[in-house]
């Protein structure tokens, strides 16, 4: 099948949203072309995890697997927030001075361009938003409401979880389920058990974190062997990243064509508003691809960029942007983490990353004085504290024989708790086009502007307080803290093509279809009106089993 024709739909992006959309379209008998800007990874070659030195290897970079992005105003380091500064006992002791610009972290916002998208390096958490999170504005006067409700989505959450064979136990508070989990829950590691015990002494309700990681073999994939390297790439295929779940099933229909290293550079709309064709660069060659239906799923940074890049005489603000909302309402990840050393604890380097979770504060109104809430998680393994380099460069100071002795004695006694909070965007938070920086194809790069508001910093302080209290209860001696105050480091970015019922104030409607273009759907985190204080990867997949093109392809 040639790339230039013969497909019923084109899906742009093969991450959480694009893969789910492609699967659903294929399952409904459509011939689907997926265009993925990044490369295809080979686990055996790219992340085998079977050689020494593994701690130094993050998720690999391959040509084209990182987008060119610039950063505008990210705020300044306010001395009034010095209590939220990052530090570690064994890390570099120098810090940026008060008033300095808040920098992006070393690698900027966390993402992968590639077949599977950022699910390639996610740790597999599968969360549902709290029902009240869909009514944030109605309940608090802050943020926005969704034009849909939890009850609308529950069947599709279930489909997405079953496709990814999510392992879990019970329902998160308030989030009713029509079915149980596909697999039994994973065991808690020693660190999680310590956190859960401390939390329960404080009256908190801690649970096993639902995970798209196999606790038993299924679908031709092996069970997890708990190597703890989910974020560095899963070499076994037990982690339910979408290239081994949605895309694999879609390919089995025989109706999927997936082209990697294919960058879409422009969408074209006809006089009736329908997207008629798109421009792409495939293997260095320009292609013009006609399509009756487009699903755009490039993520909360690249989706608005492509829409803005597609401006023409009839759409001077860009495609799908008659409201002027494309790029606005960007949400970074509000996060905090404290690590302590606990005398008598051992084995905290074992188990799945983020294996235990507390939802108590993860709904609107749960944190007094704040519209949004936050989730608490056990994060020792997620933060990389499962190897000696992390211990020696972050937690255990000193040198010589005493360093080596202390490292052996302390290894496995670190305990990290993290919090992820609800961020409510302001007027400054947006993704636009950089006026100077260009990508490899000569096109303007995306430019991120995101300043933490006073409200966000106040919630961050609540998050830090809750984490510190919990670790104190666990008997931990604090040795490291990191948070959003000191660096922009967003593993989950949202907003920028908001879903809403009012075409003048949103980009897509309740069915995720663009208000301005009847055959353009957006299927990624850009459509989220609010962040919901949880990890949203599952929620990017859920939308796609429910979307109209799967019910009425010709719409």
């Amino acid at each position, binding site marked *: 099948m040639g790339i230039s024709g013969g497909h019923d739909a084109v899906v742009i992006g093969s991450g959480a949203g694009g893969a789910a959309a492609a699967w659903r379209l294929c399952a409904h008998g459509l011939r689907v072309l997926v265009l993925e800007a990044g490369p295809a990874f080979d686990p055996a070659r790219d992340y085998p995890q079977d050689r*020494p030195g593994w701690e130094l290897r993050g998720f*690999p970079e391959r040509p084209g697997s990182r987008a060119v992005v610039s950063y505008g105003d990210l705020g300044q380091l306010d001395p009034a927030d010095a209590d939220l500064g990052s530090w570690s006992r064994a890390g570099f*002791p120098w810090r940026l001075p008060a008033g300095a610009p808040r920098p992006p972290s070393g690698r900027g916002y966390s993402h992968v361009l590639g077949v599977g998208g950022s699910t390639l390096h996610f740790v597999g958490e599968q969360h549902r938003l709290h029902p009240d999170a869909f009514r944030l504005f109605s309940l608090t006067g802050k943020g926005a409401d969704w034009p849909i409700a939890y009850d609308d989505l529950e069947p599709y959450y279930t489909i997405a979880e079953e496709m990814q064979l999510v392992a879990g136990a019970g329902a998160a508070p308030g989030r009713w389920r029509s079915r149980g989990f596909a697999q039994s829950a994973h065991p808690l590691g020693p660190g999680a058990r310590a956190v859960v015990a401390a939390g329960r002494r404080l009256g908190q309700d801690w649970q096993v974190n639902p995970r798209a990681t196999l606790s038993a073999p299924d679908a031709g994939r092996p069970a997890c062997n708990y190597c703890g390297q989910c974020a560095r790439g899963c070499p076994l295929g037990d982690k339910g990243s979408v290239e081994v779940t949605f895309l694999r099933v879609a390919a089995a229909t025989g109706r999927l064509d997936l082209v990697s290293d294919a960058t879409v550079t422009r969408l074209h709309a006809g006089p009736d508003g329908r997207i008629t064709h798109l421009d792409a660069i495939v293997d260095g060659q320009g292609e013009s691809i006609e399509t009756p239906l487009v699903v755009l799923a490039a993520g909360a940074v690249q989706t608005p960029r492509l829409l803005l890049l597609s401006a023409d005489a009839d759409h001077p603000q860009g495609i799908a942007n008659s409201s002027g909302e494309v790029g606005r309402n960007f949400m970074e990840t509000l996060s905090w983490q404290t690590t302590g050393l606990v005398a008598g604890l051992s*084995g905290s380097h*074992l188990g799945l990353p983020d294996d235990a979770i507390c939802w108590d504060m993860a709904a609107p109104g749960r944190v007094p004085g704040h519209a949004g809430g936050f989730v608490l998680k056990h994060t020792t393994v997620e933060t990389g504290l499962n190897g000696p380099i992390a211990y020696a460069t972050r937690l255990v100071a000193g040198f010589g024989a005493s360093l*080596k002795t202390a490292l052996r004695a302390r290894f496995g006694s670190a305990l990290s708790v993290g919090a992820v909070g609800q961020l409510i965007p302001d007027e400054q938070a947006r993704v636009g086009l950089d006026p100077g920086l260009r990508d490899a194809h000569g096109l303007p790069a995306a430019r991120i502007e995101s300043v933490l508001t006073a409200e966000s910093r106040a919630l961050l302080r609540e998050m830090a307080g809750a984490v510190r209290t919990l670790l104190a209860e666990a008997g931990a001696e604090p040795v490291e803290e990191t948070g959003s105050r000191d660096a922009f480091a967003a593993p989950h970015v949202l907003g920028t093509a908001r879903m809403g019922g009012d075409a003048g104030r949103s980009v897509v409607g309740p069915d995720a279809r663009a208000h301005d273009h009847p055959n353009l759907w957006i299927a990624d985190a850009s459509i989220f009106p609010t962040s919901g204080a949880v990890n949203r990867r599952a929620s990017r997949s859920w939308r796609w089993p429910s979307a109209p093109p799967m019910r009425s392809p010709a719409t």
Partner: protein
Amino acid sequence: MSRHRVTRRRLLASSLTASLGLLTLPAAAEDAGTDAMASLGAVLDGLLPADALSPSATELGVDDELRTFLAGQEMLTRLISLGLGWMDRIGGRPFRELSPMRQAAILAQMEASDPNHIPGRCYHILRALAVEFYYARAEALGGLPLDPAPQPHGYPPPWG
């Protein structure tokens, strides 16, 4: 996979320039003499000596790896040369010729010093690089409850 190691270490090394306004780096040759790196091995072994469970840094070739890594990184090389030069002077004799006790005292002095001056900054950068090269080697894991690599066996339960 060395590409990834270098990427991470380059990030690490780039922190050299963070808040470096207070720190000026004169040309190394002006201060450090003709063999500025001669004490590098002794310093690395002072940071990570041999013991009953694992070898020293130089026994694992950390000094050679570090020299290779530094090639082409002018500012970092200059900083380390200046730091080593300071270490060779502060004890009255080259660092490598001092007793282990005197070497440890100098390292402790550097650890406690202002990180915005050369001895303090050099200590932290050298220590971080040494630890990264050292504990990336399977031989360094003696006494730790770890396999040389996470796969192929993983760490299945039961856990303690």
